[in-house]
């Protein structure tokens, strides 16, 4: 099949573990911890105090600058405001709410089903107040992304590739709420006025594709683009390359090539914010992996602990090895199950120990596979070789690495390439800072 972006590979996707399961919509956590930072940018300051009663969807934290508010994802009582474990591995100040199970709604945000009449500033304000951030993982505030792209783009891309193995959250979303996602896309298109709107899906999601095809039959304002499954097609720069053939220049943003990419779940959040007047308080999380007893997709309140979520999926098996926030290629391994889900959490992946792991003495045999699979056309073996030499690392463009993991995945010598390159990047940044 024709390759639409450079490099990449096709790891066993393991999506069938969770893709056939029904979406679990009844899950209620006993308590949630809402971290004050769930986005790239400035953290929020808590707006409530211990002992307060909060409603579902009530704003519990907000801040200035590049910042969007966070909301209570359940109704109940604030029992603590303290640092809690965040998927990044750090402890972040969080508002802990005991769930009363009533979901008493907060009505501050109002629905705007007639959004076509709204002007840009109003729409952006609605999206901000609902706390919408990119749902693909990086969690950049969506109102700011839209604002900085106003009038600059000709192509709006819906990222529904979900190219990471195991994860099926976007797949399930497209199958269960296709009309809502399409509505969200139309709202963003109204803001950004692209000449072309592309819904990009990988061909391993045939059920979702069939549904979307039906929903889009006769639609003139957007097209469904079915891409051959290949990792990391869902990476922003690679997806732009696959869809438009354009390359985002090194160190620049997609707007440099007149594109904007949002994750499918982000459009859904935009739809909920604008048409329903609902803040980001829940999202679909795939709880999966060989080490969880009954893998599934859960409509999960933001701030749910991994422990509660995994218990809802039957608990861990004896041979659990890693619990990862996100996918197996780029996710973060967690120290314990106290970590809570945030807006960018698409998956809680429970892996069992398996073969093919790193060896104690990894040896580079110069097979060159890492060079072949690197979607940025870097030479990972030399980034490894010159790991202690910032000048050489810079010469080999270490900062262009996005840590997609293709090199390490494919390396027959099992070199710790991503880890080493990540350290190399900080060395280059340090050297530049001096």
């Amino acid at each position: 099949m024709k390759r639409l972006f450079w490099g990449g590979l096709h790891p066993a996707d393991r999506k069938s573990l969770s893709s056939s399961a029904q979406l679990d919509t009844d899950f209620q956590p006993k308590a949630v911890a809402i971290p004050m930072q769930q986005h790239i940018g400035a953290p929020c300051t808590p707006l409530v105090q211990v002992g307060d009663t909060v409603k579902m969807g009530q704003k519990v934290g907000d801040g200035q600058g590049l910042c969007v508010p966070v909301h209570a994802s359940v109704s109940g009582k604030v029992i603590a405001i303290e640092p809690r474990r965040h998927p990044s591995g750090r402890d972040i100040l969080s508002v802990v709410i005991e769930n009363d199970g009533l979901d008493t709604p907060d009505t501050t945000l109002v629905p705007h089903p007639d959004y076509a009449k709204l002007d840009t500033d109003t729409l952006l304000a609605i999206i901000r107040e609902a706390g919408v951030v990119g749902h693909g993982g990086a969690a950049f505030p969506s109102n700011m992304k839209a604002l900085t792209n106003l009038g600059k783009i000709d192509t709006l891309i819906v990222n529904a590739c979900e190219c990471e193995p195991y994860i099926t959250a976007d797949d399930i979303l497209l199958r269960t709420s296709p009309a809502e996602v399409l509505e969200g896309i139309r709202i963003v298109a109204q803001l950004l006025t692209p000449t072309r709107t592309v819904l990009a899906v990988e061909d391993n999601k045939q059920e979702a594709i069939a549904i979307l095809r039906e929903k889009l039959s006769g639609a003139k304002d957007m097209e469904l683009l079915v891409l051959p499954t290949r990792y990391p097609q869902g990476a922003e720069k690679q997806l732009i390359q696959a869809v438009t053939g354009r390359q985002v220049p090194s160190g620049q943003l997609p707007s440099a090539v007149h594109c904007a990419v949002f994750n499918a779940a982000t459009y859904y959040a935009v739809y909920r914010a604008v048409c329903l007047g609902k803040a980001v308080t829940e999202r679909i999380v795939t709880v999966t992996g060989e080490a969880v007893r009954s893998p599934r997709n859960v409509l999960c309140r933001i701030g749910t602990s991994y422990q509660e979520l995994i218990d809802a999926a039957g608990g861990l098996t004896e041979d659990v090895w890693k619990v990862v926030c996100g996918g197996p290629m780029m996710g973060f391994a967690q120290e314990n199950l106290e970590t809570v889900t945030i807006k960018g959490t698409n998956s809680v992946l429970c892996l069992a120990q398996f073969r093919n792991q790193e060896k104690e003495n990894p040896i580079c045999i110069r097979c060159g596979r890492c060079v072949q699979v690197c979607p940025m056309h870097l030479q990972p073996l030399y980034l490894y070789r010159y790991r202690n030499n910032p000048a050489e690392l810079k010469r080999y463009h270490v900062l262009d690495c996005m840590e997609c993991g293709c090199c390490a995945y494919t390396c027959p010598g099992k070199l710790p390439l991503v880890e080493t390159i990540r350290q190399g990047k900080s060395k280059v940044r340090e050297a530049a800072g001096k």
Partner: protein
Amino acid sequence: MNLTVSSSPHIRGNDSTRRIMRDVNIALLPALLFGIYHFGVSAAIVTAVCIVCAVVTELAANRFLIRDHRELDGSAVVTGMLLALTLPATTPWWVAAIGSVFAILVVKAMCGGLGQNAFNPALAARALLMLVFPTYLVRYFEPQGLLGTADAVTAATPLHHMVMPALPEQSLLDMFLGNIPGCIGEVSTLALLIGGAYLVYRRVISLRIPLAYLGTVAVLTLVFHKTDNAIAWTLYSLMGGGVMLGAIFMATDYATSPVTPLGQVVYGIGCGILTVVFRYYGLYPEGVTYAILIMNGLSWAVDKWTPPVLFGSKGGAA
């Protein structure tokens, strides 16, 4: 419950160094088996000596020289087998043994071991043997078949005819099948192509180096043909001597060839040019060994000259 915390990626592919080496060994089997069938038991003995010496030397070098508790990965078997395939079946066992120990100890282990050596160990060992024991390495005999003795008539290999210059007396079909005198593993183009196809199918090698190498040899010998029948001259040039073995198995050696796609093409072309130049102007009828060794020395530099085009380095909006 103990959760492991380590860097992504959290899954790894099935490929391993050991598996790659096993594939190379499998790919060498057709050429080796044909060599034994064609040249007799002596070919098997030379091969066994090379492999055993290589593995024993590797074990000792890992234990006493490199000392990082690395395990055997099959690469010593590859080196031993490759060296044997470049030797005549008449090579005395002790000459083969010296070559094999030199390959692993001096060329590979002393450079840091697997992946660190600048020169292909098997070829470097062959070059040493040609320098020190030339009489043993340029004596070829008429193939005796499986049970024949190796003390029969001295034979002229196709390349010996070609230095005259004249077309060899063997037919092109015999050349293709391997029904000719020569080194153990170089005679049968068919067997080598089968092995090469397996390596490509298993994605152990790409076609870039072999095609660039063989293509360059083909073009140069076609243009600068030395007999009237240019096409026959080209075909004999491709199937005679070690160029097929070299292009498929030696020039594609990971440690000693470039990793960048363009670099691999440049490297293959370089090997091809040098092979033809050495064959046309050199002391020996064959030039593959020295051609590849010289390009080995340049492969890191070639990598530097041919970096892949960085994503986003050219072309903004389409």
